[in-house]
């Protein structure tokens, strides 16, 4: 058992090394025998296969899953498209063949050669795309000359088709060819170079479900590349279909009303968080992106001042303006700074420090308590409530109501808005919070920023008695033969930080905003349905003293944004809506009628 010293025992080392040598010898023998098997025993067979060079690989694209609305109306379909490909190995003189094709279907020779160049030098045996999506006439010509065109093959591949042009374009999204970084990221399953993947919206978030699995076949071809025999086929697996929560009819109605305006509409079911409408204007045609958008079209989309490529429902952030007074009400009531009877006198302004903060109503509202204050949207009442509550408590309630945080909708690029606190201002500007800023915050101006979707989720929670839902856009996922793959259940994110009594006070006031004699949105009253809501007018540009109500004369870009958030029916609501019209000036005149029309249409089904 002696441990060796530094000088090894020669005999022992020798014995170990002989063991190692035998292992190496045996394993090398295995390699050699394998070589003999492949090169001598099976050599003839493999030589023949390699000389004919006849085994080709053809891939069969899977068809992407379909997308339906909540009533099973088909929104996104696949249509067959005819794509010309060339196998350079079989074509022989590639330039000659391509020139012939170019002549036959009247497409510039140069364009076709550029498409080949994109494929690079390698893999002569692989089909390379010459031209995608040729017409049926062009197809007929090529088929007729098939035998003069060695190496040319025409594949029928499914291509995306968006049936309702421009409808819910931001929500559904579009496709694009996978790029190098995406390909290398290993984030995408079953894809390869040249594939289309979702780049935006639902097409992107649900890429994995929609994509399916590519199939392919190994074929034996003759000298001209024509298939002699199919050796093996793997059938492609179609992607899964999505059933959305979207209501197509309502979506189209909302988009029609947004036409020629800039803004967004979100409608949801307050009882489960289902998104019924998500419209953002201006919109774009998703079909333009199929097979690569032309640079001219892209440039016009990008340079449009209305920013059509932004989904304003989740990506645009606006000051919530007077709609924020609901939050201030909840905070002040819950913190017991006011109660239902606390009255404030509004002379049309509030002096704070040496500044005068004005109410939108120049000569004031007189004495009023919270119900009238919210119904008539008195600024002075909320200046007072804000001062007593303080910026940080306000922020705490706003965050509790789902503002300043992402709603968790399954779409990329959602913005979370901004709810300022005194600590935030210190961090951001290295300046202490000013008391006057609290006054701005209390009426939803200043630093406050929210997205239309956040406001929809919030007003839905007010309507349903306090439950904040995570907005749901896809109800269920099914395989193309109708088997259920996945159900996405409604998800509760939490509750509003308010008691039953507090909510009742606020809900009563919101009811008066539309149904009351002095409400700011009384213009949209419907016969059969009671609506509860709140208007808002977000200042883009601060108005000078004494210039009240003169914004009709202001430049378009300086006009105020118009808000309206609401739910209906006021008791047991079935729909909650948030509308923003950029530069729409008054919530009551531009935003509220949109919501009113949508409710009228939706309630016909109840």
């Amino acid at each position: 058992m002696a441990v060796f010293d530094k000088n090894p025992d020669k005999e022992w080392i020798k014995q170990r090394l002989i063991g190692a040598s035998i292992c190496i010898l045996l394993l090398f023998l295995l390699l050699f025998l394998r070589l003999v098997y492949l090169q001598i025993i099976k050599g003839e067979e493999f030589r023949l296969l390699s000389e004919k060079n006849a085994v080709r690989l053809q891939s069969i694209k899977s068809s992407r899953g379909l997308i339906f609305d909540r009533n099973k109306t088909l929104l996104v379909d696949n249509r067959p498209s005819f794509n010309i490909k060339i196998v350079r190995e079989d074509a022989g003189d590639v330039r000659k063949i391509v020139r012939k094709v170019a002549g036959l279907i009247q497409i510039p020779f140069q364009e076709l050669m550029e498409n080949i160049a994109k494929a690079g030098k390698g893999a002569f045996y692989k089909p390379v795309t010459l031209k995608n999506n040729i017409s049926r006439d062009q197809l007929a010509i090529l088929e007729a000359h098939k035998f003069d065109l060695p190496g040319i093959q025409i594949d029928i591949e499914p291509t995306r088709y968006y049936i309702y042009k421009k409808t819910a374009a931001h929500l559904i999204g579009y496709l694009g060819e996978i790029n190098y970084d995406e390909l290398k990221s290993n984030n995408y399953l079953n894809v390869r170079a040249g594939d289309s993947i979702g780049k935006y919206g639902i097409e992107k978030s649900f890429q994995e479900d929609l994509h399916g699995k590519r199939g392919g076949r190994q074929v034996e071809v003759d000298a001209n590349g024509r298939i002699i025999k199919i050796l093996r086929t793997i059938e492609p697996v179609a992607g899964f279909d999505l059933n959305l929560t979207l209501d197509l009819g309502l979506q189209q109605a909302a988009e029609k009303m947004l036409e020629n305006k800039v803004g967004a509409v979100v409608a949801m079911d307050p009882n489960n968080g289902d998104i019924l409408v998500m419209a953002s204007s201006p919109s774009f045609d998703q079909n333009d992106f199929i097979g690569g958008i032309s640079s001219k079209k892209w440039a016009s989309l990008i340079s449009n001042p209305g920013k059509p490529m932004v989904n304003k429902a989740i990506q645009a952030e606006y000051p919530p303006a007077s709609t924020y007074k609901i939050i201030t009400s909840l905070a002040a009531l819950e913190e017991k700074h006011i109660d239902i009877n606390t009255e404030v006198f509004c002379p049309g302004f509030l002096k704070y420090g040496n500044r005068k903060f004005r109410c939108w109503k120049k000569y004031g509202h007189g004495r009023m308590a919270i119900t009238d204050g919210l119904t008539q949207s008195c600024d002075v009442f909320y200046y007072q409530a804000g001062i007593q509550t303080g910026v940080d408590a306000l922020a705490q309630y706003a965050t509790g109501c789902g503002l300043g945080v992402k709603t968790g909708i399954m779409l990329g690029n959602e913005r979370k808005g901004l709810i300022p606190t005194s600590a935030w201002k210190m961090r951001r500007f290295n300046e202490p919070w000013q008391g006057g800023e609290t006054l701005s915050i209390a009426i939803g101006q200043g630093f406050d920023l929210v997205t239309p979707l956040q406001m929809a989720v919030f007003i839905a929670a007010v309507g349903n008695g306090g439950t904040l839902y995570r907005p749901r856009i896809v109800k269920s996922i099914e395989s193309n033969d109708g088997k259920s793959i996945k159900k996405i259940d409604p998800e509760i994110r939490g509750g509003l930080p308010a008691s039953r009594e507090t909510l009742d006070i606020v809900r009563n006031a919101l009811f008066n905003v539309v149904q009351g004699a002095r409400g700011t949105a009384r213009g949209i009253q419907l016969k059969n349905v009671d609506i509860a809501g709140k208007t808002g007018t977000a200042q883009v540009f601060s108005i000078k003293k004494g210039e009240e109500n003169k914004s009709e004369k202001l430049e378009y870009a300086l006009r105020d944004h118009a808000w309206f958030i609401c739910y209906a029916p006021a008791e047991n609501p079935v729909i909650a809506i948030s509308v923003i019209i950029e530069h729409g000036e008054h919530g009551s005149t531009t935003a509220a009628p949109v919501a009113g029309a949508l409710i009228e249409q939706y309630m016909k089904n109840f």
Partner: protein
Amino acid sequence: MFDRRLIENFDWGFVILILTISIVGLVILYSALTAGHDAGVVHILFKKQIIWMGSGFIIMIISLLIDYRELDKLNLFIYALCVGLLVSVMIFGQLGGGSRRWLVLGFVRIQPSELMKIALIISLSSVYSTCVCQTGLNFNKLIKPAVLCIIPFILIVNQPDLGTGLLLLLIAGSITLFVKVERRVLVALSGLCFAAIPLIWFTLKSYQKSRILTFLNPDRDPLGSGYHIIQSKIAIGSGMMTGKGFLKGTQNALSFLPEQHTDFIVSVLAEEWGLIGCSALLILYFILLFWGLNIAYNCRNMFGSILAFGITAMIFCQVFINIGMVMGLMPVVGVPLPLVSYGGSSVITNMVGFGILLNIRMRRFTPN
């Protein structure tokens, strides 16, 4: 300081052998490169490989100036340095192909997992040289080596680079078997390995699982990696006895294989030079390996013997896995063929290994 006897003992034969394999490697590489790339690119890549080989030779020669026994004393320092590099790859590493393997230092990119192989061999040799005994090692003596292996293994698998990680374990395993372990320890460890297989299976990435399943049943994925193996087998088989001749491989010319200048390079050799060419390369490697074992035998120092064996084991594992994989004897893992496959890190690592072998050889008569 530098003894004249060292020059007398310099092993010229070994250097000539390495040079021969390198030249054979360059010839095959040239053919593999011409197929898939434009003339300009071939020129650049080929030149790069020659520069790597030249630098490798220079590093090999310079390393001879230091007595290899210094490595024994410095083993923990070298080990810690390499682990440090692996950790910094994790943090600062360059992302490529979905994994972090490369560290950019100025104008060179290094792959610390390659250097780790050498560092681990040195450390294990150092540990084992103090505790070898006739009856073999018991459990207690294996704890330290096990820890030394696990740390870099986890770091490399995390990159993720399962191939290199497993190669590391394989090399460490061969060294451990070489120094002998007690029979009961051997039985227990084998049992443990079998038990670990299902556990490892669940931690594999989906593409790794698919490669292993495809290896077990090539028909499973005739359009993906199964297709590569089929094409590789056609290339090798069609070479027959004498091959199709230099630059005349048709499978090669059509770029049927995706990695023909790196991992699949043997298929090019087999197609163009046939069984004769392949056997010649196998014989060259065979001589190289026996030369290494001979160096281990003639060394009068336990550390040196184990070290020489470790380096030889490293070369062997790479040769066997690479050729076995290309011929469909093994799943597809990214292990390059020493001195033949394109790639700088692999060339440098192997040259450093050869330098150590030469070093041990040269100082075989110097007293401890």
